[in-house]
């Protein structure tokens, strides 16, 4: 199917906003993958190696954690991007999921509220199975969390400004929180 230049540019522009954010913690390139049934529905994700889990490093360059980023979006006829779902995960180096920020309001297993899963227990409650409400989580907030709370070394000297600026733009443009 032929894709117009304006639509390609809009997709790439959106990809670049996400790329600039993840570039604060990883040199990996985010790819944009088209869904099989609808060319206007796409997902930004990391390359296939290790199931799309990228290594995050600490201050000494040592591998510390892994993460995955999957952000789905729709390109409407007016060439405007609308997010349709996300899954941001942190893993230990062995690939065990530690936490996951989810929003998947439609389709199989739909759940309208954005939520968090955490691999922890409180009494008999396994938090990995619970849906802890979060409101909408910006990718910038997820990346900031990696740096400030999990000891991941920032790869950009001005990461605070980059993340703050991008998040402000996101907050100003979003249609729900």
């Amino acid at each position, binding site marked *: 199917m032929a894709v117009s230049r304006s639509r390609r540019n809009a997709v790439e522009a959106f990809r*670049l906003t996400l790329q600039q954010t993840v570039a604060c913690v990883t040199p990996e390139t985010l790819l944009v993958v088209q869904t*099989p049934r609808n060319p206007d529905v796409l997902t930004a994700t990391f390359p296939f190696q290790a199931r799309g889990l990228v290594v995050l490093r600490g201050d000494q360059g040592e591998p510390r954690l892994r993460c995955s980023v999957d952000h789905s979006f729709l390109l409407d006829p007016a060439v405007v991007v609308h997010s349709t779902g996300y899954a941001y995960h942190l893993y230990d180096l062995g690939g065990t999921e530690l936490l996951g920020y989810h929003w998947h309001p439609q389709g199989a297993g739909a759940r309208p509220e954005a939520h968090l899963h955490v691999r922890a227990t409180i009494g008999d409650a396994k938090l990995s199975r619970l849906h802890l409400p979060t409101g909408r989580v910006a990718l910038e907030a997820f990346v900031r969390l990696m740096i400030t709370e999990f000891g991941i070394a920032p790869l950009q000297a001005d990461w605070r400004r980059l993340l703050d600026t991008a998040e402000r733009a996101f907050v100003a443009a979003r249609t729900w929180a």
Partner: protein
Amino acid sequence: MVRAKTAATHETSAVLSPEESWRFLDAQARAIAGVGAEEFLRRIDRGDYDDLPDDLDHAATRRLILLFTGGR
């Protein structure tokens, strides 16, 4: 509307073509679900994953569903 910025003026291989996307999805489906893209899509259509628990233990399959459906 979210995150829309001034359109980029260059093309990039980071935005996969439909054929590249299908190959990517096929490889992911084989690695995570042990079946190819065609079969994984059939399973989604059949509702096989409608009752899949939404938790961290099934995160890989959930991510795969998101890649195939875009959350739609």
